[in-house]
């Protein structure tokens, strides 16, 4: 069964790249072009996982991440931040805002797929335990 992945990024280059990487796995892709649309689609689409860019117009990824976490309807959805800034401080901020994991740009396909697999497997185990 395909897992729904919500890609939130204002860059068509990144969206295209992520789509190509995810095309190799059992994923169904939904796209949002900024933080506001991302928060809305997280609620309406109920994806299995969200790939969230940090720098975006209207609402940045960190704010969107916190908004998704604070809504009971979306709080459970794992969020992977996609960031150009790999510095420790930025990563800490992302985790403080509730992200599950992060990948840095340029995106490495194997790293992204491995992280998504791990997160989705952990979620299955978690759901089983519940």
């Amino acid at each position: 069964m395909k897992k729904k992945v919500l890609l939130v990024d204002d860059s068509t280059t990144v969206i295209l790249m992520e789509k190509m990487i995810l095309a190799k796995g059992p994923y169904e892709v939904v796209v949002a072009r900024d933080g506001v649309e991302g928060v809305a689609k997280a609620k309406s689409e109920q994806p299995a996982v969200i790939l969230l860019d940090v720098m975006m117009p209207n609402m940045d990824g960190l704010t969107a991440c916190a908004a998704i976490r604070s809504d009971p309807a979306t709080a459970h959805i794992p969020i992977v931040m996609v960031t150009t800034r790999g510095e420790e401080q930025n990563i800490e901020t992302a985790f403080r805002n509730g992200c599950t994991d992060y990948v840095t740009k340029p995106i490495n396909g194997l790293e992204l797929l491995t992280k998504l697999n791990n997160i989705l497997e952990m979620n299955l185990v978690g759901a089983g335990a519940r």
Partner: protein
Amino acid sequence: MKPNETHRSYIEKVATDNREYVQALLDENQRLHEQLADLQADRARTTQMLEQALEERRAFSARYVEVEQQNTNLANLYVASYQLHGTLDRERVLTAIKEIIINLIGSEELAIWEVDRDFGAMVLIDSFGIDKGRWAALPLDTPGVIGIVAKTGEAYTGHNTKVHVAGREERLTACIPLKLDGEVIAVIALFSLLAQKERLESIDYELFDLLGSHGATALYCTRDGVAMEALQ
């Protein structure tokens, strides 16, 4: 039978039984030794097979990582090419070039100049993360690496030992000419890499090549008149 004979006979029987018992033990010991040797040989073979299997698994994993890296590289090239040729709109071509550099190569300090031979200058047409005023326009014969790249059409990727970056070019990481029919029509400069990216990778050089040729074509097609002609 006399008592002595009875005793002797009994002792002989005991001695015979004892010899047979000892012989049986020796035989059993020999059999167990042989069995142990067989088992040890089996264990050595199994260990060897296990080591071989582990080695194969390591080789397979390494190959898998290599293939996945190649997949990512191909995806990078496909995305870059697709983005460059997906439009005749100048702004969108420039955005595509910037996005390729930021997201696929990994630099947030870049400049794109277009060569204006009538004015003998390079004019900054787009940038990201740099002081625009400092780099707005450069004479074609500007001293330094950027000028050399514009003049010779040879890319600078930090490995050129003949050229030396200095002054305001000190942080120059790469400088790529965009060429059409051998003529430099634009120049891209990268002034740093993202913090998590230590060095340029082989795919980056391929992306530079792609930008140098496809980027030039895409940019040229957006010039006044050319785009209209293509649309007609």
